[in-house]
């Protein structure tokens, strides 16, 4: 048996989070590692994603923070000599890397067995042609599809099938490059682009309007086969499943349909010979039992993570065991403890997954949803009616929506929104019903199954009743059963949220806690996996007893730009640390992509909303010692002040002090009192005053409308003209909606401190430094730890000021302060009294778990000061940001004050250059081989870049440049060739070169930060992203790269292969 000969197994992770490949792979990888460890197998993990749980100190035996590319993986294999390799737990990245390794004969060379599904089988699922052929052998139906290898053939294929056609790109994650083409023009455009990323493009019959159904299938080596979960998309085919609202189990399928598709799924997995887990996606005709298989993913996926959380069935764990040769009948169902893993869960609740988009953060981005995924995160709600679950899900996304109704949201063109969906479609449906449109009309426009529409209409009708009639007990109960929050009910009836809560409790209307037990109550189970529902009459569980000290931890909710897996790491570590101190832990979170929502990670898991109302429900039921709000990012932290008002015990830094840090005026006053400098700012309500202030402090200024919930619409304004334009675009500025204007300091360094304090005394700290100058959001910046280029005096000042702030705010727990450093002058720009994005990074660079320390402090343990901290390292960690611009058509891929990255990685090196190169390689950068294209905007930048250009020349690169840059460089004796902007109609043009792969790197330093659409810079950057050519848009990064390339040339073995522990 495999498990007996496997001594050491290599696991490939998925790297930085990006659209289409996010936190779900931390969850699957973590489960896989646990499953292998249970069998005494040594685990080696390659994953540069520093914020993940799987790269924590107590999981894999060895962690390599290195790019998941064939070059690096081969070197690790050479060094570690593993017996086996797991490819299916790191998303498409790991799978593609595995295929390459196999094709290059590397696996054979080192005699490594791929565990579970073989590479040949994986290839059959990935190569569309092979896939279709294979399925034909068993008469399983696939869409009519023609594989093509160039645009000309694609055109022919489309004509044969007839427009509209679907274009699909092979070997792509999250359906990148795929989409519907109405006509030949669109086809040619898409095909041209697709062929740059993939050798194969498929032209397929268009199945728009069909239902989209998925099954998660598991098979062991003895051919035992089960389907763990089926899921139905609320949005019909046409919207990527990652961007669809998904319901589990299916609600509109009859027995025949459900089990027919199940039968096909099992036939397919058997025929392909998959061992482990796979996902099969179907299109189902809404008017017959006709189906088409859209795709099979022979690996753990976003859907499998969702299915695990939806059912309680640990798919990744089981898949890892099956890969080792276990049988389904040999694995225990951990939820019940008595039954086996060979069964199909039965759900007695309704699951809804809702995507979270952040498109507002990107100007000019195409907001319409289609076959390319655009969402950055997701939430999962659990209810016992569709109405309850959907309203919960909408709230969970954290976009400021209170449910289906009672939101502030303008939908100007309902018709258009229904037909060309954006993230607001569900609200457009609500509005359509509200203005009297019929089910038929909405169905015709959306093709959303009428059953869903009926259910949504129920909510609208209930809302109308709330608005128009007296709030009786019956109506209140009914609206709670339909998922209305106290806030929604209050808003509809003109009462305060808390008053609704009190009335409700008086009437005995309270939510009940139910378990997720995989068997719909058929067997007794001790599961701690819980949710709240009003569609019930009793609790499944009892609260912790008085002898059981417990603590409630808030998770981070939906992953979004600015808050993702790093807070999951914090929550899991806080939970572990609390357990170590003898506390029972209660987790409240609603994100299915996380490890913190693994029911093994805490004593009780409430998979539910992180809202005031729900938090109070948990608090009142469990009566914990208190709540830890500082681990789940801003979502969790935001609740502190409100909960504090109702005598909820917030652990750690006091609510009063959290408020003093969060409230801009109070914080500013405090800084003034202790004599700490900050950039000049003012909260203003009139355009004149904004102008006056801007003139006084001098442009540029940063303008932040304070009422914007998602943090969007923050902007740097460079002159009067820009200011007027901004104010015109921004919504009304008035006394209710003031804006905060801050002096924007250019050319300063940005320094951060992450620290843990107890009663105002700092116990441990980490000071890091950004590579980019201030102006790039700290979440997008490249960060060096320890700081590499700061004056000792600067560091000392940062320490001193941080100590004073911590003392003044009497901080107990984690906190983060961001500073600007200019000529040794220090200004505070931000202070958060909670764990920050960089805590996992700092903890892992220092090999000191700062969150565990913070948790001990929060729980009142006396801890000692970590002396002379860990600054004195003989290595450096560099954190780089992972962007997803290739998914965000139209977005301007340039860094600014608004965060744009979706993930991060960090790598280690003996030198700054080593760590820097590994780090950028981990986020998809490729070291240029021969050619670089330069387009340097401003004159002084050109001057600054000149000596770098000379070095690049010396390194042997052929340089191309835009007209202006070429002129400047040629004048300064650096020989470069001009490539024009296609709009100039001169040849040669740079797009042709990009398309043909003749350029290895684009360095574009934008003319000014004002660069909008329809400039050359914008077009150039968009083209580089579209054609997959590495792009650098920042002077400091460009300079650092040039220096690093020099060192690499001098020392070709610079990029050493060392595991984390060796540093």
């Amino acid at each position, binding site marked *: 048996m495999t498990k007996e000969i496997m001594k050491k197994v290599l696991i490939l992770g998925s790297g930085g989070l990006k659209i289409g490949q996010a936190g779900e792979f931390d969850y699957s990888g973590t489960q896989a590692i646990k499953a292998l460890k249970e069998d005494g197998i040594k685990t080696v993990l390659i994953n540069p994603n520093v914020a993940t749980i799987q790269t924590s100190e107590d999981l894999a035996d060895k962690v390599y923070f290195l790019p998941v590319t064939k070059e690096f993986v081969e070197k690790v294999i050479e060094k570690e000599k593993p017996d086996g390799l797991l490819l299916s737990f790191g998303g498409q990245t790991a799978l593609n890397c595995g295929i390459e390794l196999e094709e290059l004969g590397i696996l054979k060379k080192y005699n490594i067995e791929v565990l579970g599904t073989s590479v040949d089988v994986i290839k059959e699922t990935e190569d569309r042609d092979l896939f279709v052929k294979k399925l034909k052998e068993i008469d399983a139906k696939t869409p009519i599809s023609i594989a093509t290898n160039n645009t000309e053939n694609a055109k022919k294929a489309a004509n044969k099938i007839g427009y509209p056609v679907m274009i699909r790109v092979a070997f792509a994650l999250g359906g990148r490059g795929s989409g519907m083409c109405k006509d030949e023009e669109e086809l040619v455009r898409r095909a041209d682009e697709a062929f740059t990323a993939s050798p194969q493009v498929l032209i397929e019959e268009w199945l728009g309007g069909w239902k989209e159904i998925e099954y998660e299938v598991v098979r062991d080596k003895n051919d035992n086969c089960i389907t763990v979960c089926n899921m139905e998309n609320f949005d019909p085919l046409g919207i990527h499943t990652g961007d669809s609202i998904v319901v589990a*189990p299916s609600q*509109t399928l009859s027995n025949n349909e459900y*089990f027919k598709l199940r*039968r096909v799924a099992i036939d397919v997995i058997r025929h392909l010979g998959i061992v482990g887990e796979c996902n099969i996606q179907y299109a189902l005709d809404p008017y017959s039992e006709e189906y088409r298989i859209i795709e099979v993913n022979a690996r753990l996926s976003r859907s499998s993570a969702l299915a695990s959380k939806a059912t309680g069935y640990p798919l990744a764990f089981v898949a890892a065991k099956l890969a080792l040769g276990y049988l389904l*009948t040999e694995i225990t169902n951990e939820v019940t403890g008595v039954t086996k893993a060979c069964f199909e*869960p*039965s759900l007695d609740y309704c699951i809804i997954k809702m995507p979270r988009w952040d498109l507002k953060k990107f100007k000019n981005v195409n907001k319409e949803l289609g076959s390319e995924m655009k969402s950055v995160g997701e939430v999962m709600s659990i209810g016992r009616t569709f109405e309850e679950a959907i309203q919960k899900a909408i709230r969970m996304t954290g976009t400021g929506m209170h449910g289906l109704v009672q939101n502030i949201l303008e939908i100007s063109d309902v018709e258009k929104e229904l037909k060309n969906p954006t993230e607001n479609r569900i609200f457009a449906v609500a509005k359509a019903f509200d203005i009297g449109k019929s089910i038929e009309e909405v169905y015709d426009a959306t093709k959303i199954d009428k059953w869903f529409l009926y259910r949504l209409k129920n909510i609208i009708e209930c809302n109308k009743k709330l608005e128009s009639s007296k709030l009786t007990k019956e109506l209140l109960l009914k609206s709670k059963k339909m998922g209305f929050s106290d806030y929604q009910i209050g808003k509809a009836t003109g009462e305060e949220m808390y008053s609704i809560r009190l009335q409700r409790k008086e009437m005995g209307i309270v939510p009940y806690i139910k378990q997720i037990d995989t068997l719909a109550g058929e067997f007794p189970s001790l599961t701690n996996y819980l949710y709240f529902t009003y569609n019930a009459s009793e609790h499944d569980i009892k609260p912790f007893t008085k002898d059981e000290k417990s603590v409630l931890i808030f998770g981070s909710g939906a992953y979004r730009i600015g808050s993702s897996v790093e807070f999951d790491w914090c929550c899991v570590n806080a939970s572990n640390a609390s357990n170590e101190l003898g506390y029972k832990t209660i987790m409240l979170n609603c994100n299915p992509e996380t490890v913190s929502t693994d029911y093994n990670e805490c004593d009780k898991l409430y998979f539910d909303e992180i809202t005031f109302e729900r938090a109070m429900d948990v608090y009142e039921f469990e009566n914990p010692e208190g709540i830890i709000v500082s681990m789940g990012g801003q979502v969790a932290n935001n609740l502190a002040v409100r909960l504090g008002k109702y005598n909820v015990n917030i652990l750690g830094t006091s609510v009063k002090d959290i408020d003093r840090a969060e409230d801009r005026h109070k914080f500013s006053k405090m800084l003034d009192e202790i004599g700490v400098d900050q950039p000049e700012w003012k909260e203003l309500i009139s355009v004149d005053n904004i102008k006056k202030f801007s003139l006084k402090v001098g442009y540029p200024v940063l303008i932040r409308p304070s009422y914007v919930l998602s943090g969007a619409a923050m902007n740097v304004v460079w002159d009067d003209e820009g200011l007027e334009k901004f104010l015109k675009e921004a919504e009304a500025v008035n006394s209710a909606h003031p804006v905060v204007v801050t002096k924007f300091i250019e050319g300063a360094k940005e320094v951060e401190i992450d620290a843990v304090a107890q009663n105002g005394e700092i116990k441990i700290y980490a000071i890091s430094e950004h590579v980019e100058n201030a102006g790039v959001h700290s979440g997008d910046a490249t960060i060096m730890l320890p700081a590499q280029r700061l004056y000792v005096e600067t560091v000392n000042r940062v320490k001193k000021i941080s100590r004073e702030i911590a003392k003044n705010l009497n901080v107990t727990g984690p906190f983060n302060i961001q500073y600007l450093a200019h000529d040794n002058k220090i200004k505070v720009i931000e202070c958060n009294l909670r764990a920050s994005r960089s805590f996992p990074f700092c903890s892992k660079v220092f090999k000191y778990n700062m969150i565990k320390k913070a948790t001990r402090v929060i729980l009142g343990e006396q801890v000692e000061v970590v002396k002379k901290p860990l600054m004195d390292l003989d290595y450096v960690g560099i954190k780089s940001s992972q962007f997803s611009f290739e998914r965000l058509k139209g977005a301007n891929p340039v860094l600014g004050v608004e965060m744009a990255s979706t993930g991060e990685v960090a790598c280690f090196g003996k030198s700054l250059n080593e760590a820097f190169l590994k780090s950028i390689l981990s986020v998809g950068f490729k070291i240029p081989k021969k050619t670089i294209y330069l387009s340097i905007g401003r004159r002084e930048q050109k001057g600054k870049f000149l000596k770098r250009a000379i070095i690049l020349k010396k390194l042997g690169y052929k340089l191309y440049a835009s007209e202006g840059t070429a002129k400047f460089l040629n004048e300064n004796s650096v020989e470069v060739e001009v490539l024009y902007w296609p709009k100039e109609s001169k040849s040669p043009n740079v797009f042709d070169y990009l398309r043909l792969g003749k350029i290895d790197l684009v360095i574009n330093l934008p003319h000014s930060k004002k660069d909008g659409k329809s400039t050359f810079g914008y077009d150039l950057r968009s083209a580089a992203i579209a054609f997959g050519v590495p792009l650098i848009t920042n002077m400091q990064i460009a300079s650092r790269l040039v220096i690093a390339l020099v060192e690499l040339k001098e020392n070709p073995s610079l990029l050493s292969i060392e595991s984390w522990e060796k540093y």
Partner: protein
Amino acid sequence: MNSSAKKSAKLVLEDGTEYCGFLVGSDVTTSGEVVFNTGMVGYTETLSDPSYSGQILVQTSPMIGNYGVPGDDKDEYGIKKHFESDMIHAKGLIMQDYSDEYSHWNAKKSLSDWLIENSIPAITGIDTRALTKKLRELGTTNGKITIKGRNEIKNINLEKESQVRKVSTKEVIEYIPKNSKNKKIILVDCGVKNNILRSFLVRGIEVKQVPWNYDFISEKYDGLFISNGPDNPKKCEVTIKNLQKALNEDKPIFGICLGSQLMALAAGADTYKMKYGHRSHNQPCINLETGRCYITSQNHGFAVDTNSLSEDWEEWFKNANDGTNEGIRHKFKPFFAVQFHPEAMPGPDDTEYLFDKFINLL
């Protein structure tokens, strides 16, 4: 969810526990054995399954009625295409959330209308998870449905006689499929599901469907099939006696569900009433010969006591969850039976191959 317009109704269990909700379906009171089913689809198939005769069915799946109810069209043999029999056999239905509106291309009416046609009451708005846990704790229990403004049924008097009497065919029906393989089976109908008939017919087997108490032993046939059905197998004394005669011969015999229990009793083994039975689509059953595990559809409250099997018989399938018997077979003769439903409908069809196995022996 538009519960406000509905009449209040209650499910009252034998021990006095009450569950309040709203009436759906027919405005009549009823009583019966209360059982829960954890299947997530298939209410039309389940409600028309004769094995539920005499029972009030609780669905753990929270939203029921979503895809409506199909029409009554029949196939070439006169068998209803979309149902497992000609009527609803369950006495009542308990749901957490009835879908007032349905949506499906094949639906012709709502679940409520179908219930009304069959004079069957249902209740929505009940915490079916709480009820299921109660049933699990009490074991299967009796209960009644009461409706506000209607006289209550005073006592829950369940019939002494077997429900099989009610659901079995009253007359002999012969089916000759077009593609007949010239093999004929006697199908002893103790409440047979239509899909068992379909499973034979589609395989070209001639079927003579006979009443539960029909003496078939002197007839000419190639194989014998004992169907599923409701109630305690021990009440079917006549069937057991007839079956004993068949066991003395060598013609292949196949039993499903109640058929398996009857075969065990005829072979001298014992059956017992389970605490709360198996009613679901996700029961894992292990074939003890091959070690393979199959996901099966089930609906039974009684089981064969494996320990009581005589030497000539052996356990064939076993439930992977609770170890109860899921199939028996004769060690030497072509006799076998399974507790689960290879014909599915509703549920997974992983064990459909058992029909072929039987047919190959004819």
